């Protein structure tokens, strides 16, 4: 931070806390508190209990957690592969080709996810590719939604990657595929892991497109939370939400560990 005086530092911190605490921390703390409550009629919750967690980590909710994790991991790996592939292709294209790909991959971000969900539903509800009613339609929709983020973050890094490394490798006799595997991808690893984390987190929290598509045997956690709150079980919903947050944070933390080890200089 570029603030040096003591009072200046304090003031900066005060402003930061004033903005951060009510906007970000309090809502999360409220959910956390609610997940342990049996009652919340006054200013504070009462009747501390772990019952909601029993419900949130068993039966349907546990099933939903697995569903969410499998969906998010599959969708982010697919998105990472497609996004990286496209980003590397874009980096080797001319300026016009790159701009076209950039625009193409911005589409799912620009279009509301409900629309993406509807599009996927309409497209894959009849033969030749009939995915409606299977888990694959959810995974596919998530992949479409998060690939844009993988593409954008890898593309930015691929453009910044100094071509001298790939050229040095080629001068040493390395084929283009060898250069890609041993030089370019390892050098892009930090941004690949960042992209993976982002895609995973986005997929874990996706609700609007999922709502239109999920089959009964493939209910991700956000849908579970929505269903719980919809039938009035706010505290159970809160406990499931905490499980969702914890699972997401845990995976992000693991990914960032890989990331630290993969960054050089």
């Amino acid at each position, binding site marked *: 931070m570029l603030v040096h005086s003591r009072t200046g530092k304090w003031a900066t911190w005060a402003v930061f806390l004033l903005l951060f605490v009510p906007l970000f921390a309090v809502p999360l703390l409220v959910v956390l508190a609610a997940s342990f409550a049996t009652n919340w009629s006054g200013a504070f919750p009462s009747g501390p209990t772990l019952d909601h967690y029993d419900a949130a980590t068993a039966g349907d909710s546990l099933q939903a957690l697995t569903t969410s994790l499998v969906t998010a991991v599959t969708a982010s790996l697919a998105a990472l592969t497609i996004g990286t592939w496209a980003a590397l292709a874009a980096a080797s294209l001319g300026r016009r080709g790159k701009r076209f790909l950039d625009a193409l991959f911005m589409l799912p971000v620009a279009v509301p996810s409900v629309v993406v969900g509807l599009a996927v539903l309409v497209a894959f509800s009849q033969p030749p590719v009939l995915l409606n009613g299977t888990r694959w339609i959810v995974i596919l929709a998530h992949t479409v939604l998060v690939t844009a983020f993988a593409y954008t973050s890898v593309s930015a890094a691929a453009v910044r990657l*100094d071509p*001298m490394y790939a*050229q*040095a490798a080629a*001068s*040493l*006799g390395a084929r283009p595929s060898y250069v890609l595997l041993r030089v370019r991808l390892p*050098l892009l690893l930090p941004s690949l892991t960042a992209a993976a984390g982002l895609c995973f987190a986005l997929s874990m929290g996706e609700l609007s497109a999922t709502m239109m598509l999920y089959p009964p045997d493939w209910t991700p956690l956000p849908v579970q939370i929505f269903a719980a709150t919809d039938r009035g079980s706010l505290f159970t919903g809160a406990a499931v939400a905490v499980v969702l947050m914890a699972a997401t944070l845990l995976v992000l933390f693991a990914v960032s560990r890989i990331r630290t080890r993969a960054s*050089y200089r």
Partner: protein
Amino acid sequence: MTGGAEAVRGGIRFDGVSVAYGGNVVLDRLDLTVEPGEVMALLGPSGSGKTTALRAVAGFVRPAAGRVFIGDRDVTALPPHKRGIGMVVQQYALFPHLRVQDNVAFGLKAQKADKAGIPGRVAEALELVGMGDYARRYPRELSGGQQQRVAIARALAIRPGVLLLDEPLSALDAQLRSGMLTELARLHRELPDVSILYVTHDQVEALTLADRIAVMDKARLQDCGTPQELYRRPRTEFTASFVGNANLLPVTVAEPAGTVDFAGHALAVPTGSVAGGATATLCVRPHLVGLGDGPNALTGTISEVQWRGSTHRLYVDVDGHRVKADVRELRDTPVLGDRVTLHFAAHDAVLLPQGAGASHG
């Protein structure tokens, strides 16, 4: 996998190589041959097309015209990884995610060299540049000079027939640079078969290291010869001023030839093949100009004095022309405005015909 792995016999030949970027010609019909085992310096100011010429050998630019040969092989259409070259660039380009030993082994692994032999060859290459103790470090843990040695070891590990060096010393400070220059000379003595194309803008590096120097300016080869030839007998004004910063005096050859006229002074210099009556440029090295009376005396006023330790550089205004003279350190430092007489021996002067600037092969 074709080529690459087996070391090509040295030697590089440019055969009318031209390179253009979007209609802008940056290398104009270069004809140049680097013999096997020879160190050829490509010397010229920034932007003269030296790097472009080197990249044409490496395969990173495609010539608009002409052919490039490595050894006897026409490599013009070959991709870089099939050319069997070693290359070291200004920024070294060591792979930051690999240890020193893996950087050096990279080319061997990429070319699928015999696995059992790789550690030995890596150690050998690192020993050659005196970096044997640093095999397990990462590039970021090395100084600039050490990174440079590793980059050279990496390029040499694949035993290339030609080694391309693009301003390899420019990222080092002056002291390290002169040390590395000695090292490079030693390295070349230990690898007598390797042809080296050494790109530099620094005449000291070129004069020290090269068997021959190719002087480049404005996308063209201006001159080519041994350091002594270029220094003592430059063929063009550009060479004379770029290499060794010579005095270039506009003169008219007297009729009959034998002396020249410089601002009204008759100077006795060998006129060679330059015809009488022609205008020409007289080239004299500053350190061959003496202070005091003698043959070919020129009198003028001192316009600037620079003390350079063991020598004084005098700038003397002779009838409107600035003449540089490097004289041994003087006890009584000359003062601006002093009138002094300079002289030089006839055999120390070279007469360049007007318009000398044609390319040489």
